[in-house]
């Protein structure tokens, strides 16, 4: 009797919870949320934890985020330890058994990525080097193509009732991707040289054949000293790169300064969906990134 009424109570709770209406997806970064939106459309409710204006390396776990993760049917994140400063505490504090590490709904997007720059040996004297490899793979068409496939599979698994809908949206997305890809290939970036603020463009450089010849940060995550800035100015004068690249959340001031000193133009590249009003989704983000590099 008690067991039955308890069961009924649990069913009641489940029934009244708003989660039932739509699939609750919690994404850490804007670009992940945007891809989920492209595939899930009106069948999913997406919460993105990190704002486009934030540095994805240094996000603070806020209690409101714990509540969002508590409600998640599936948690999708960048991985490669980019979220290590806040996601583990959110996941544990959420008390949500479905999205704990080891569960399939603890969905690490980097599982579909061919990771580059995995250091053979690493310690923190090298700065904030990511021991699992470069985590900024979201500006990499070939990797995101596969990630989107993976996201679709995951949505279809968690919400099998809408499997066909998700797959159809993936096909539509892939068609758009291929169209866009032709435009992207039109940008001739091969052989170009850039100085970047952070190790943010390596995947892109690999795919489009340009070079990053130096970094404004002396080591990843370490802000430049005056002496280092001098060295970068020298490097810029000697190598004459095409531009100095930064993202909108940091490094813009340094890049402008370097640009004035060296005569090399500085370019602010949108780093994630929503960084500028016209970066509505991942495809338009790529449009803008490549246009900025041209």
């Amino acid at each position, binding site marked *: 009797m008690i067991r039955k009424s308890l069961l009924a109570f649990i069913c009641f709770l489940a029934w009244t919870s708003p989660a039932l209406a739509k699939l609750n997806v919690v994404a850490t970064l804007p670009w992940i949320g945007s891809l989920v939106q492209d595939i899930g459309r009106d069948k999913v409710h997406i919460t993105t934890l990190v704002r486009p204006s934030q540095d994805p390396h240094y996000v*603070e776990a806020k209690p409101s985020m714990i509540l969002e993760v508590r409600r998640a049917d599936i948690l999708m994140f960048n991985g490669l330890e980019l979220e290590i400063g806040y996601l583990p505490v959110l996941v544990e504090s959420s008390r949500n058994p479905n999205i704990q590490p080891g569960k399939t709904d603890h969905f690490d997007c*980097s599982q579909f990525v061919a*990771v580059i720059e995995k250091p053979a040996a690493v310690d923190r004297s090298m700065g904030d080097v990511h021991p699992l490899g470069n985590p900024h793979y979201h500006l990499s068409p070939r990797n995101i193509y596969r990630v989107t496939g993976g996201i679709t599979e995951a949505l279809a698994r968690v919400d099998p009732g809408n499997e066909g809908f998700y797959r159809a949206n993936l096909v539509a997305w892939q068609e758009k991707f291929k169209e866009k890809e032709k435009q992207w290939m039109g940008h001739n970036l091969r052989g170009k040289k850039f100085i970047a603020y952070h190790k943010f463009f390596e995947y892109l450089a690999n795919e489009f054949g340009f070079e*990053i010849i130096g970094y404004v940060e002396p080591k990843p995550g370490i802000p430049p000293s005056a002496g280092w800035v001098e060295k970068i100015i020298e490097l810029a004068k000697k190598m004459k790169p095409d531009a100095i690249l930064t993202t909108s959340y940091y490094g813009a001031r340094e890049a402008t300064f370097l640009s004035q000193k060296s005569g090399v133009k500085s370019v602010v590249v949108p780093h994630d969906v929503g960084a500028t009003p016209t970066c509505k989704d991942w495809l338009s983000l790529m449009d803008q990134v490549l246009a900025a590099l041209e």
Partner: protein
Amino acid sequence: MRTMIVFVLSLCLVSTSAFAETLEERIQQLEETIKKQEEMLQNQHKTLEELKEKSKPEKPAEQPVSPPPPTRDYRLDDRSRGIYVPSASPLTPYSLTKQVATPGLMNPAISLILDTLYYHSSLSRNELASKSTPGFIGPQEPPFREGFNLRAAELWFFAPVDPYFNLYATLPITENGIEVEEAYFVTTSLPAGLQVKGGKFKSGFGRFNAFHPHAWDFVDAPLPYKLFFGGEGEGLIEKGAQLTYLPNLPTYTILGAEVLQGDNDTLFGPDAESGPHAYTAFAKSSLDFGGSHSVLFGGSVVGGKTKTTSYAPNTELKGDTVLYGLEFTYKWKPSRWRSFILQSEYLYRHQTGYLTDTVALTTDSLNRDQDGFYVQALYQINRWRIGGRFDRMAILKDEVARAGQELSFSGQPYRVTGALEFNPTEFSRIRLQYNYDKSDPNRENQEVLLQFILAIGAHGAHAY
């Protein structure tokens, strides 16, 4: 076939070499080159195999039509200068790394945090040792000595036990040996927003209580924590069990209750009763305003049986104690490089019992109703942070009655603190702090502290 290609390739390479002078040298070079080429081919073969393996389980509808394969990889050739130089030879396009099967992944995450400081006080060692806050607490062993101090080298372990439990242990190593500051499990798979914690842990009471000394915003604890919990003011760290509940409400709210052993020997005392004899309950809520403002507020209560000698030398206090706490935190964090935190707590102690003079062997009733609060603000800009704190006891209520007689003590204990921090990275912190301490109304204590906190090992997550 492969060897042939290698041979021809090598020949080409070698023939262009203008530096090999003798035949012997040339042969040596040839051999080396062959070796290298073979290694490269093997690597490429491996990569191909891995690629095949990798592409099997996924099933995106079609193979991606990708931009041409990369021609360059980048190596950290010059680490000291940090400039990434393109490597001379075209390498395999992507080094494929799987995140499994790395040896050592089954080990728990481990970190070691060094907390060391230089201490100067305007008082002599004897004056510090006899310093007290009458009505609140008797003389206590001063936490620091004039000069260099090693507070602790704190070992921290974490790992999931299985799909149902996570385990944490914080083991500060001091010159007196290793201590178990915390060692507890947390459940991860309970339904309906419930979580159980058990072992020895920092209680959910209050705000400041949750933090380890290396994560404090100042070198030392706020005055109300020092006077109500004793010691350095670490707060309520107890053996026990905790149940918390996170309801699915529109705003973050957490409710919790604990059964604790009651070992804290200022507030309760290990011998006050044979079994667990302290109980807590707390509720906290949080709201966001815009993207970068948030507040956390709540109330806590802890009550239990008391048997302590901390009231004054040669006394023993037995009775019942209830401590109430109110907390408020405001944070503004628009970016990594700027933040502002305002935090305050108010504590109120209600105690009834009997005080025995262990020399004269007399016993009187003792009732205490006392309070205290602190407010602190920290402003961070780039790698610098500046902080101020004001602590004051006996603000709304200060009643100490012994044998029905109201006792009066001179002045309200207070302290003013200023601190300047430089944080080279998130793993190191240098802090200079000044205290003007009138927690003993009869003694003016001025303190200067220079602290170094350095962390190695696993990257712990930061609590709010």
